[in-house]
């Protein structure tokens, strides 16, 4: 695995601190599944968190707190399995979309298992039309938290519509590849784009690009006009 594009250290620190919402955290976690280097950086940042927590001014617990907890030590743990903790082997990407129209990545590109609580099966997921050659599934909705994550599949040669955003945007490639002004992104790569960056990814290989996209501010797809969605020259 040759992951070339990584989140900034500031984003890894925010992930470790718990400062990212669920959507962007999902993007970072997906990248971490591919990237030992960033997993190590997160462990380092968490160790900073341990120091920061230990050095804070303590606040005494209420009287009787310890005795209350001691009385609960032998009670069975509440039975609330976290779906993220009960995942099995990751599902492979299907080789063919349900409609039969598109070849997707080969079965050698399994989804990171961190995605399992969000999307069970690419073929039967509720894909919504976003633009010609671009379909999406909402994974984390803004209504539920401070940010969003979507799964996108972009047909070969297609351009993601122009979109503006006020905050931070990230993209993680799961299969296929795309290119933008920062370079070429393949499986496992994470593109981090601040609000002032022009960014228009193009699925640049012969296969469909499946990727995650997340933002901490609503995406404003402004370019839903044929002009910007036309296949790029040369594809």
């Amino acid at each position, binding site marked *: 695995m040759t992951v070339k594009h990584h989140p900034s250290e500031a984003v890894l620190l925010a992930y470790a*601190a718990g400062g990212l919402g669920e959507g962007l955290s999902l993007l970072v976690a997906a990248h971490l599944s591919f990237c030992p280097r960033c997993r190590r950086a997160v462990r380092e940042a968490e160790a*900073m968190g341990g120091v920061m*927590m230990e050095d*804070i001014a303590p606040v005494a617990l209420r009287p009787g707190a310890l005795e209350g907890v001691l009385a609960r030590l032998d009670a069975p743990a509440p039975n609330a399995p976290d779906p993220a903790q009960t995942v099995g082997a990751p599902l492979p990407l299907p080789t063919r979309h349900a409609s039969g129209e598109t070849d997707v990545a080969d079965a050698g590109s399994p989804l990171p298992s961190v995605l399992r609580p969000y999307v069970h099966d690419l073929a039967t997921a509720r894909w919504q039309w976003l633009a010609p050659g671009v379909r999406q599934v909402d994974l984390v909705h803004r209504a539920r938290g401070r940010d969003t994550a979507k799964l996108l599949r972009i047909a070969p040669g297609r351009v993601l519509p122009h979109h503006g955003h006020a*905050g931070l945007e990230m993209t993680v490639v799961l299969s296929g590849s795309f290119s933008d002004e920062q370079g070429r992104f393949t499986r496992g790569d994470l593109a981090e784009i601040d609000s002032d960056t022009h960014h228009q990814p193009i699925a640049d290989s012969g296969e469909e690009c499946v990727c995650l996209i997340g933002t901490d501010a609503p995406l404003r797809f402004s370019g839903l006009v044929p002009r910007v969605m036309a296949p790029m020259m040369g594809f």
Partner: protein
Amino acid sequence: MNEYRLHATAPVAMLDRQAPAARRGRVRLHPGGAAMTSVAVDGDALADLVLAIAERSDQAAFVALFEHFAPRVKGFLMRQGAMESEAEDLAQDVLLTVWRKASQFDPAKAAVSTWIFTIARNRRIDVLRRERRPEPDADDPLMAGEPPPSAEVHLNSAQVQARMREAIATLPAEQAQVVTLSFYEDMAHSEIAERLGIPLGTVKSRLRLAFRKVKAHVGDAFT
């Protein structure tokens, strides 16, 4: 009476009996929750306490951990904006989780404070923010080939933590400030930028510099 003894004497008795580092007098507990921001507790001794819970459900060890960490978890959560009652309940939950999951603690991977920090962080996200905390799954086949902790690593987690504390303490003020806001105030980078009246890029570059400085001081302990 009984309750008082649990607080004041049980941990000491336990430490005398079992924790080697504590016998050397390096553990200082703070009954009564006296405000102390400078921590002089030996990380090895804390790890011994967690291992005592994992190996023999040692309640006295738990009491010692509770007295050290519960007030810090509570203070930490309140600093991040939790109400006092929420922070109280969550701090108790976090320490209960320490008891239940003690066998999952690996002293080769993390210091006790780091482990408890991650438990507190995840509980806060779950309970207060009502969100999931996506984390890569250690059993994911994609992550196969993770290099095992190197046997040649010359610092243990507690020593690494001590070096990290030194590094954080010597950060330039403007870097310490963004680190503090990131960990204590639950603020996004854009909110930090707004609070400090500096560009977002400056927030990120200060965090990068701070993180690199800390990593350089700690060395390759995390490989």
